[in-house]
């Protein structure tokens, strides 16, 4: 099942991030020309003058080509030119919301604008043809986990817990669960002071991927919250050990990151 899902996801990603089927446009039309020209852009360096000029030619041929605006926005957003980046991406969303809303949501998350991230994702999942299993551009998290973390960032923990629980429950098999899903759920339970549920989720995380040092830290916080200081200290020390492991798993887009100083502060308390 996992293999099928991964194959499907890979396939889906390549469809949603590609230029589309050029044969859908009438022969000789500017749309078909723009589409053909779009197929040549991957040879150009992202953010280079040549690539930007190529995108402009594509947009000139077909001003309604959402993909071209989206693709042109990437270098701006990656380099902190948010005004131009979002202007382009907004145009892509305006033309084709289903294909580009989650990407815009991702960039709002990156820029720590959680309210606008939530707006985009709520709008996306309400679309009749929304694809439930949409991932971050890096592919490390389901976008519903990003939605859950965003709710938590603005203090709506119950909504966040719901979003992540629903995401996990939507998988056909345990094998499909992401490498950080239960961790994210456990963190939200800790923040919401539901310590027993937090411990349950974080221990499930250890069965799937035991290499995030933050998982041990949050287990420590959960036991500390329950008043079990001795047990908490064991987990905090494990967190420190894992933190010093050069092969530990780095949880990208964690939303709530733990630093060595946070762990040390708990140990020395």
């Amino acid at each position, binding site marked *: 099942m996992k293999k099928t899902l991964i194959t499907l996801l890979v396939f889906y990603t390549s469809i949603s991030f590609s230029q589309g089927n050029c044969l859908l446009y009438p022969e000789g039309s500017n749309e078909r020309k723009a589409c053909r020209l779009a197929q040549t852009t991957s040879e150009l360096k992202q953010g280079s003058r040549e690539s*930007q*000029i190529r995108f402009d030619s594509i947009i000139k041929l077909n001003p309604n080509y959402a993909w071209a605006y989206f693709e042109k926005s990437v*270098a701006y957003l990656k*380099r902190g*030119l948010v*005004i131009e980046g979002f202007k382009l991406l907004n145009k892509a969303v305006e033309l084709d919301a289903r294909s580009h809303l989650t990407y815009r949501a991702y960039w709002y998350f990156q*820029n720590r*604008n959680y309210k*606008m991230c939530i707006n985009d994702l709520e709008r996306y999942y309400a679309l009749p043809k929304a694809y439930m299993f949409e991932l971050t551009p890096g592919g490390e998290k389901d976008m519903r986990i990003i939605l859950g973390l965003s709710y938590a960032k603005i203090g709506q923990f119950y909504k966040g817990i719901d979003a992540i629980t629903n995401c996990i429950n939507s998988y056909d098999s345990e094998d499909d669960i992401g490498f950080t899903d239960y961790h994210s759920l456990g963190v939200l339970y800790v923040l919401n002071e539901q310590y027993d549920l937090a411990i349950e989720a974080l221990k499930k995380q250890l069965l799937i991927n035991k290499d995030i040092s933050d998982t041990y830290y949050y287990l420590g916080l959960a036991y500390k919250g329950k008043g079990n200081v001795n047990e908490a200290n064991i987990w905090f020390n494990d967190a420190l050990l894992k933190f010093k492991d050069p092969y530990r798993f780095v949880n990208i887009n964690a939303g709530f990151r733990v630093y060595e100083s946070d762990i040390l502060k708990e140990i020395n308390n």
Partner: protein
Amino acid sequence: MKWQNLILCIVFFSLIFVSCNTNDKSKQKYLADIGDTIFNPSLDDAKFKFCDSSNVLHKRAYVKYTGGTKILENDIISQYKIKPEYRTFNGYFIVRFAVNCNDETGRFRWEVVNADFEETTPPKGLEKHIIDILKGLNKWNHPFYNKKDYDGYTYIIVKIENGNIVRS
């Protein structure tokens, strides 16, 4: 003969002019790379120099702050002094700059957006205060990439709610 020469000259030069013009249009619109920042004497310190201006990396992940994000945020917040007139401000400063191979910073440029990510004008004093703090940070490390030292561009997002800097 003189007339012919003159006409030929006019045709010749106008051809050059026209062709130069079309070339310039697309070239002027974009720099070699999105985010390249050219020296501007009215904004930039002339003492800041790239070690190799032809190859400044646009790889943010390779420009690191000693101690990481948490220390970076501590260093910014500990210098920040809020004033009553800043309290109405909600938004983001997205500040781009370069770190040269000697770990010096320069070429600061920034965009300011409100809570809805629309371009906005912050209180004057606040803008100067934030940028001065960022210009004063001296724990940056230049990119070490593929076993070589580089100059590199990076950026910081300073999120502000009711005049207070929000940690990530």
